[in-house]
């Protein structure tokens, strides 16, 4: 269980996150929805250690992990699939996946997980020896999620997995996220595509200009008139 309390993050003098609190129970899918600039990406970057927090706490399974360095978060069980995918363009698909196993001593386990990724994303398997930079946007997203699976965290942080993808691919990615969750991985999903996110999530939090405002079971949040108007375009 991940518990975030009163999180604050500043970029210089700008307060990107002012007061964000939420909980991600084990085995569930929790989504943070909100407009551009609401602080969704910054929240995930703080959780994985890419950004220093200036207040509040991040507790994973009872352990305070606030402000640990990013590379130390990985062995603790945080896998972050960043915004914009951040594939290594001149490494092959397989090398990208192998590097995701950097902190895992047992290389057999890494190979097994890579096979698992190939099962989930057969298109990635076909491209295993191609350079990451030559993949299409959708394939890069699959590879990015695949790296998240290989790092093998308890909790997978997904930042805008649907961004820039054709609608048919969006459906595919979301059904794969559900499949990963069914296998036991907890998921924290950040999305602008609120409709799809609310559809697969168990719980939802709404982020507005650095604050968490509404929250509740995803089904109820999807019915909330304010959410419907602001994020679902109804």
């Amino acid at each position, binding site marked *: 269980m991940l518990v975030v309390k009163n999180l604050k993050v500043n970029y210089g003098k700008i307060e990107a996150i002012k007061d964000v609190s939420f909980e991600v129970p084990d085995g569930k899918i929790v989504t943070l929805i909100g407009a551009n600039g609401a602080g969704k990406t910054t929240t995930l970057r703080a959780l994985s250690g890419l950004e220093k927090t200036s207040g509040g706490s991040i507790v994973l399974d009872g352990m305070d992990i606030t402000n640990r360095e*990013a590379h130390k978060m990985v062995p603790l069980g945080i896998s972050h699939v960043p915004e914009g995918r951040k594939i290594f363009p001149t490494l092959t698909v397989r090398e990208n996946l192998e590097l995701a196993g950097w902190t895992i001593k047992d290389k057999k386990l890494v190979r097994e997980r890579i096979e698992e990724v190939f099962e989930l994303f057969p298109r990635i398997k076909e491209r295993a020896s191609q350079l990451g930079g030559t993949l299409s946007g959708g394939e890069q997203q699959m590879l990015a999620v695949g790296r998240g699976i290989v790092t093998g965290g308890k909790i997978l942080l997904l930042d805008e997995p649907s961004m820039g993808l054709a609608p048919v691919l969006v459906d595919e990615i979301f059904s794969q996220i559900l499949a990963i969750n069914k296998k036991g991985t907890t998921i924290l999903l950040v999305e602008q595509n609120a409709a799809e996110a609310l559809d697969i999530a168990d719980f939802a939090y709404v982020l507005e200009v650095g604050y968490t405002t509404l929250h509740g079971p995803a089904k109820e949040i999807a019915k909330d008139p304010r959410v419907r108007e602001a994020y679902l375009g109804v």
Partner: protein
Amino acid sequence: MGAIFNAQQIVNGLQVGSIYALIALGYTMVYGIVRLINFAHGDFYMLGAYAAYGAFFAFNALFVGKTGLMAFVVLIASMAAGGVIALLANRLAYKPLRYKPKLSSLITAIGVSMFLEYFLSALPAVGPSYRSFPDILPRVNINLGNAVISNYVIIDIVIAAVLMVGLTLLIKKTTLGKAMRAVSQDKDAARLMGIDIEKVIAFTFLIGGSFAGAAGLLAGMTYPRIVPYMGIQPGLKAFIAAVLGGIGNIPGAVLGAYIMGLAETFASAYNSLIGEGIAFAILIIVLLVRPRGLLGEKIADKI
């Protein structure tokens, strides 16, 4: 023109190019990974030469009659010195400035360079004047048709080639090499894979510094004299070679270095003053015609 473009000059050019290549690799690798032009890099070359000199006189008595082993010990000493000093420079001077404006690191690099040169000159055991470098191996001239080639020249070319093949294998095949490439491409993504990027950066300085150190030994043996300021000119030329090949690009640095070595040797055969200047002429032409270098990638500004 026959006197300029003959076998003798080509071999000499390859030898000069080999020395430049070993230095240029460190420049380009460090630039690739931390975007720093490490102007102290030529001084790691100088320190390699002095460490080799010191190791020779310290251990010479132990290796009487075993010149091959002695040469190996001296090579290790030069690489260790270049590598360790590069590690220290990174840890003490560059790391604290990592996320500060780039100009701070650049000026610091010049400071590190001057510190190393003047500190060594001030050390009574080293001093500011030239020292002649001992013959670690017997000096033999080999006649090849019209060319007379010193065995030292061959040794320089071969050792540089062996080290560069080793580096290629390290970068292409090992997990650490892949991590180096990953860190140079995207630091945040590398951290999210669990890679401690500071360790990878330190390792890059170690390798780059050790290659410069080896180059210092080879140059010291071949020319054969050393001085605390011996790194300035080759350092500058190796930097130009790295820019010529496309800074940050490893094969580019090697290509640029051999082009520089050959161009300089041919030009010197014509007129030694032109030889000294040709590197800078090449730099100006590259910057005007193809600023990203021969093998450099087009850098798109991130929005």
